[in-house]
């Protein structure tokens, strides 16, 4: 018997990565839980609403012990979303799924995650100060055909021309003190305020924050001119520089 499809629309499946806190308990669990309670008392709500992964790599425990630990943690409002490094024999139904292929991140990144503090019984979100130092690179020679400069961390300045068939991809703005004949993409990681500046516009393609414009869509009066380009709403605006 064939199942009838109820709806022609497809189901969206996407990949996405999230930052999770990894807890690596050690034996005996009772002592470890006391230390965890100490930590929780100092910074209340540290685990509240955060995805937590339990790392049990190399721990000589059985299924029952793991189940007890998960229950203990659930009682402390620590919700385990996955288990890393667990042997298949200790995992079972009703337990969080096994996770593989995790990559470490800096401790700073974990600390930057919003932490909710409990004060006077009232949860009050604290906005974290995410201000990474602005970075920029300067390239002192022409960018040749087939070369690409990729700098997601900030601004790119080229002292020289960008050849036809070359590309510049910057997280911030792109400054070209020469002719732009290739492609320039500014705000590549999602920065609508990034701009593109060039001394002479002959570009094949320009893009800001994922919105692009081909050579033939550009006003012919701008060819060969000193130009800056920026984003207004969903369209790229270009203007001659004096």
């Amino acid at each position: 018997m064939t199942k009838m499809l109820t709806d022609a629309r497809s189901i969206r499946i996407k990949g996405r990565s999230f930052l999770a806190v990894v807890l690596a308990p050690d034996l005996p669990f009772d002592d470890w839980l006391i230390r965890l309670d100490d930590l929780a008392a100092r910074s209340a709500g540290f685990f509240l609403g955060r995805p937590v992964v339990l790392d049990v790599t190399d721990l000589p425990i059985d299924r029952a012990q793991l189940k007890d630990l998960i229950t203990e943690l659930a009682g402390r409002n620590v919700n385990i979303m996955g288990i890393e490094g667990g042997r298949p024999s200790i995992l079972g139904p009703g337990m969080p799924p096994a996770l593989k292929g995790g990559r470490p991140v800096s401790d700073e990144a974990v600390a930057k995650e919003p932490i909710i503090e409990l004060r006077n019984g009232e949860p009050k979100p604290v906005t974290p100060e995410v201000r990474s130092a602005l970075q920029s690179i300067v390239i002192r020679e022409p960018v040749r055909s087939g070369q690409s400069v990729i700098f997601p961390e900030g601004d790119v300045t080229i002292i020289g021309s960008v050849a036809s068939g070359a590309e510049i991809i910057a997280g911030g703005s792109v400054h070209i003190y020469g002719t732009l004949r290739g492609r320039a993409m500014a705000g590549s990681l999602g920065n609508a305020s990034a701009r593109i500046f060039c001394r002479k516009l002959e570009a094949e393609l320009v893009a800001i924050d994922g919105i692009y414009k081909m050579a033939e869509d550009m006003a012919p009066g701008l060819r060969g001119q000193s130009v800056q380009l920026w984003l207004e709403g969903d369209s790229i605006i270009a203007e001659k520089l004096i």
Partner: protein
Amino acid sequence: MGKVIVVTSGKGGVGKTTSTAALGAALAQRNERVVVVDFDVGLRNLDLVMGAERRVVYDLINVIQGEAKLTQALIRDKRLETLYLLPASQTRDKDNLTPEGVERVITELKRVFDWVICDSPAGIESGATLAMRHADMAVVVTNPEVSSVRDSDRIIGLLDSKTMKAERGERMEKHLLLTRYDANRAERGDMLKVEDVLEILSIPLLGIIPESMDVLRASNIGSPVTLADARSAPAMAYFDAARRLAGEVLPITIPGEKRGIFGKIFARRAA
């Protein structure tokens, strides 16, 4: 120690082989010891332009594979005592060109010759990158049209990243040789102008070789144009380019530009 020059372009048919032969013969006429090396394995042509196609016994691949000694493979030119050719193999596969083998051959040639001129194959594959790998200097051959200019630009990028010099953090000396230049067509706008090419590639100009029947005629009789007809316009341009390679400072003349009063006098005398 001799100087290793790679003659390269990216695009095919722009005049790499012709320029290799012409520059080689021009330098050899200054009594300097010159070897021209064909790297175009499988599509060799330098032996034809040098008029040595019937004298090839061993080739570059034989030397690299250890089947022949370098002295057995080198062919001395019949007209110039100091000019030699190391031919490429026409039958073997270009995969036989190994990085170690090329390094050994180039090192050995450098010890004996003042100039080692490597004729690169077209493209950006292993043949071309091996030909440029050990160069001290590059001659980028370009025609005044957009596809050739873009390919040259690509090659310049490779010269700055894939060569031994670049890997040691040194700067590769690059020179532009503009070939098949037709002043009338450039004037009409059918061809890129000299200043446009220079603006795009931004490397120093070694010379401008005019489009001429003399080049084709010389190739057909198996002689570098600087030997076949030393008084012809392309030969003169190649002689000047060779002098600049050797370090002389000469003003560059654009072929077909209106000559000064001296030019007129000389033109009348020659007529």
